[in-house]
């Protein structure tokens, strides 16, 4: 066998290429193995002309190859030249299939050709190897593809792009770029926000959507693929669309089997885990190093820096300062403990549970987005009702939660390793309680976006957040003096389930006895009466369902299904029954609630016999409202069309009690049986508008209202995110003359939102230009009389209701 290289580098992406170039510059004997016939296949396969971004911009590049934001072609050309100039020993068409041997003498087997020997191996094969596959029915049909080479290839097709990362967005943009191609492009995103994608891409996507060239469907997943058609699940239910081609870009998992076969261990069993790495990128198999996307670092700049660094490490350099070190140093300066950056990273990662699953490298990146803070004993970390949506992790010390606002001495401790502020992740509500350090404490504050990203990347973190949220929710729902210790057994078997709209978690007549907690979304309870499903009740988030079968060991008496996309926690019955027998107080509480619910059911059933029509009406109205998304509302404006005279005084009052713009459109919206749901904010439980607000200007106020604060930058994300179209981008019109002048002399435009013409003239006269900002209903926050739209309705047609109040049995009474 021929020569033994000092370093064999597998994969010529930005990471491997940079490593090879540095090895070449340092005069090390090396070989760069690339399975294709060109460098950097991942970037090679980007769309033609793709603008490659060089983020994070604060990070300095340390590599023997150059890289700056620019067109794909230019960058590839540059790298070809750099690699040549450095004198890299490249071997193309060298597909590595196995690595055997140990440090100092590895044998690298290729699919064809003689094996290669090397002392050290750098694995930089990226993650492109195995794209995540679509799993719904029909996903194996030939028109489902995982790669898009040339978007110009397709014309006049209905194309669905599945996936919300950069790759998917860029494919979709490419397909929609040229209107002359006549493609009808739709992009599906499983979640409400595009947390994984770069902002510039998201901006471009939204601009394209607004120009009407693309449809963006969020919180949507494909459920069935048929030739020519696709069926998708949306928060409003499932729908079927024309579809000639599906491009699935749902990310990729590391080619784990191959990596593991080399003797490299991964951080965990979860499919999203990365190889366990030392700070020098060495794997658990000494002599094999992993860098780049495979190590969990998907950005080109990071990859290139790591290529340089790893070669330095192999050469025996131990005191190399990572490229982001200065940034982190600055961030951590002034904290107690005198730790070095690497020690901080390890300290935080080991002590804060949700960070356990991060690799040291991911931890570095993560810390760039977060903040570490030290608190003195009794110092407030946040105050009840303060705005804020970040999550805190306790790295050392502990905190106390002031659970009773009237008595700050009643506190509940949260210990080291745990998190708090997690509600902010879900709704961005104001802080529910004041939290203070119980002793000198060090916390890491994770902004909402970074936390969402963490949960998306590291399944362990998601599981931990879920577990903690479940625990706190169970304690909160059942109260009765339960402690975390009491419910551990119940929680051990808990299962978090995503439920599609319309999907049943409990079926009438089934023999099953688990208990369900509604974490987000809401459920409706239906019972089959006389062959028709009759609406029984509405179960909002933060409540439970399924207790009857659990307590009475009887078959299910009704069907419980999701009103909107929901998350529920399934608690197994047996441990819960044991909990009930241990806690008579809880048992009593639940039995009382159960009897109350039973009475309601019995009442509706008896009414159904006597006044079938009224109950049917109630049931169908309830179903209509659920279809309108009322299930996710917390407070919604409804108009009784048998009373509404169309005077639009509600709109006028809205405009006049705000800065001249009506936030509601009475006429628009849908109607059923005299109930009109106008276009106006419902103050959703989990507001879609909040999902991606760069300045975090959308908050929830003390009355539950979702409002936009004056830090709005007018980016329009919320307007695009709102499925109900209740947010407008506008600027407040100039001030009108006082009302009496209009009444007496007809001066000015009169009450209500001034006409466009008047505004144009008055703005010109005023001269000042103001920016367009996002405007939406704030439920007349701060006005003691409550919402003006309702107060100003002369006939009582306008009412504001919470869904549970409106969908209550009281409605049956009103025959």
């Amino acid at each position, binding site marked *: 066998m021929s020569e033994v290289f000092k370093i064999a580098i597998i994969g010529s992406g930005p990471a491997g290429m940079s490593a090879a170039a540095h090895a070449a510059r340092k005069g090390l004997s090396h070989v760069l193995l690339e399975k294709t016939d060109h460098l950097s296949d991942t970037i090679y396969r980007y769309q033609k002309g793709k603008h490659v971004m060089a983020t994070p911009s604060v990070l300095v590049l340390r590599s023997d190859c150059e890289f700056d934001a620019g067109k794909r072609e230019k960058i590839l050309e540059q790298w070809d030249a750099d690699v040549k100039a450095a004198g890299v020993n490249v071997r193309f068409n060298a597909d590595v299939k196995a690595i055997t041997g140990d440090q100092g003498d590895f044998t690298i087997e290729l699919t064809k050709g003689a094996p290669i020997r090397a002392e050290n191996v750098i694995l930089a094969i990226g993650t492109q190897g195995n794209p995540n596959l679509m799993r719904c029915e029909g996903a194996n049909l030939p028109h489902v593809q995982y790669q898009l080479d040339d978007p110009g290839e397709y014309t006049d097709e209905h194309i669905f792009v599945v996936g919300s990362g950069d790759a998917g967005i860029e494919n979709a943009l490419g397909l929609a770029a040229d209107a002359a191609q006549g493609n009808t492009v739709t992009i599906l995103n499983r979640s409400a926000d595009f947390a994984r994608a770069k902002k510039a891409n998201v901006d471009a996507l939204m601009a394209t959507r607004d120009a009407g060239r693309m449809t963006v469907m969020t919180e949507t997943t494909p459920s069935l693929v048929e030739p020519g058609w696709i069926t998708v699940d949306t928060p409003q239910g499932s729908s079927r669309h024309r579809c000639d081609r599906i491009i699935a870009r749902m990310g990729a998992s590391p080619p784990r089997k191959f990596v593991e076969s080399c003797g490299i261990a991964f951080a965990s069993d979860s499919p999203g885990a990365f190889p366990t790495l030392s700070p020098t990128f060495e794997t658990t198999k000494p002599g094999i190093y992993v860098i780049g996307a495979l190590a969990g670092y998907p950005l080109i700049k990071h990859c290139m820096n790591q290529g340089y660094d790893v070669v330095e490490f192999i050469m025996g350099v131990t005191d190399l300062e990572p490229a982001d070190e200065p940034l982190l140093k600055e961030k951590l300066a002034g904290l107690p403990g005198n730790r070095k950056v690497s020690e901080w990273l390890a300290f935080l990662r080991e002590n804060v549970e949700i960070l356990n699953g991060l690799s040291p490298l991911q931890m570095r990146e993560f810390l760039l987005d977060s903040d570490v803070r030290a608190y003195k004993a009794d110092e407030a970390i946040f105050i009840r009702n303060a705005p804020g949506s970040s999550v805190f992790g306790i790295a050392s010390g502990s905190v106390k939660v002031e659970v009773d606002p009237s008595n700050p001495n009643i506190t509940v401790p949260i210990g080291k390793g745990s998190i708090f502020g997690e509600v902010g992740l879900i709704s961005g509500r104001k802080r529910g309680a004041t939290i203070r350090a119980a002793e000198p404490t060090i916390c890491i504050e994770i902004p909402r976006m970074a936390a969402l990203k963490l949960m998306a990347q590291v399944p362990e973190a998601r599981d931990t957040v879920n577990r903690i949220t479940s625990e706190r929710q169970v304690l909160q729902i059942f109260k009765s003096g339960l402690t975390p210790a009491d419910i551990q057994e119940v929680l051990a078997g808990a299962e978090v389930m995503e439920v599609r709209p319309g999907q049943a978690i409990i079926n009438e007549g089934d023999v099953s006895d688990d208990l369900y907690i509604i974490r987000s979304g809401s459920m409706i309870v239906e019972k089959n009466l006389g062959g028709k499903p009759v609406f029984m009740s509405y179960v909002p988030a933060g409540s439970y369902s399924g207790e009857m079968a659990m307590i009475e060991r009887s078959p299910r008496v009704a069907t419980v299904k999701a009103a909107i996309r929901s998350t529920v926690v399934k608690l197994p019955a047996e441990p819960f029954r044991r909990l009930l027998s241990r806690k008579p107080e809880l048992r009593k509480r639940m039995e009382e609630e159960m009897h109350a619910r039973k009475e309601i059911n019995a009442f509706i059933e008896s009414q159904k016999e006597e006044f079938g029509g009224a109950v049917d009406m109630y049931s169908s109205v309830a179903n209509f409202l659920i279809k309108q998304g009322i299930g996710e509302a917390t407070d919604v404006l409804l108009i009784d069309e048998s009373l509404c*005279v169309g*005077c639009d005084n509600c709109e006028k009052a809205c405009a006049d009690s705000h800065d001249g713009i009506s936030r509601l*459109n009475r006429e628009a919206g849908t109607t059923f049986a005299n109930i*009109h749901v106008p276009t106006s904010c419902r103050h959703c439980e989990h507001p879609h508008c909040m999902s991606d607000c760069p300045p975090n200007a959308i908050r929830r106020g003390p009355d539950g209202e979702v409002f936009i604060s004056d830090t709005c930058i007018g980016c329009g994300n919320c307007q695009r995110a709102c499925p109900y179209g209740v947010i407008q981008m506008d600027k407040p019109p100039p001030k009108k003359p006082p009302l009496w002048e209009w*009444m007496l002399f007809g001066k000015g435009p009169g009450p209500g939102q001034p006409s466009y013409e008047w505004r144009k003239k008055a703005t010109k006269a005023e001269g000042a230009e103001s920016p367009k900002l996002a405007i939406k209903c704030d439920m007349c926050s701060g006005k*003691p*009389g409550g*919402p003006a739209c309702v107060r100003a309705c002369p006939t009582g047609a306008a*009412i504001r209701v919470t869904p549970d109040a409106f969908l209550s049995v009281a409605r049956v009474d009103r025959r």
Partner: protein
Amino acid sequence: MSDVAGHTERVRQRTHEGFLAYKGFRWAQVATALCVVAVGVYFVAASRLAEPPSGGSWLGYLLGTMSAGLIVWLACLGIRKRVITAGHYSLKAWVSAHVYLGLSLVVLGTLHTGFQFGWNVHTLAYALMMLVIASGALGIWAYATLPERLHGNRGETTRKQMIEAVESLDRQLADLAQPLDRAGAEVVRRSIEDTEMGGGFWTRLTNDHRGCANKRAMVQLRALPNPPSARQAEALTRIEQVMKQKDAVLTKARRQMQITAMLEGWLFVHIPATFALLAALTAHIVSVFAYW
């Protein structure tokens, strides 16, 4: 959450009842009680006085003052409706009281006059009051019966959508008219340019659109001589279809405008008559004191 500093607990109008039934007909009861007492006192007083109590008696003064106060308060509804203050008030409650107390004026005002009418400013004020009340009653009829028709007619289409629908049909007409000769193009042009959706208040109220340009264009279209080419014939058929569609949209929009006009038309009597009433009333009071 009411304990938060700076946060005011607020009222929500969740109860779903119309203005007539507001708070279990509270104002109807108040107004009835007022009338019953007034009638009772009137006849007791009448049996004791030599003459029936006129406006000049103590009872007359009392009833007159009450009536005038009520009238002024009733007229204030026009302001209440438009000044959106932040405090606790409900326009529904105001309207409920307005309606029933306004109706009670029939009794209070009439008793005040002592049934002495003549051709003078006093009786003018009285007549105007009755006119305002009668128009108000008409309004109640409109409010009670028309909303269902209003919303039933439009379904889920908004005014804006109706206008846009007509505009889009007009664009189609313009495109379709391309192959036509001059006479044909002229007919289409008239439909596009001369069609008026609404018109004046009276037209809207009566929904009398016999002169509708689109309707006339449809008649003229049928009267056109047979076109020479198949292409033109085809265009003419399509144009007729589109004009029919336009007619349907117009009919719906106009019916909508008619109902709206009926819903607000009575206010065109109610409000001006209120102003006239206030003027006449002032004259009445001034004259009464002047001739005292």
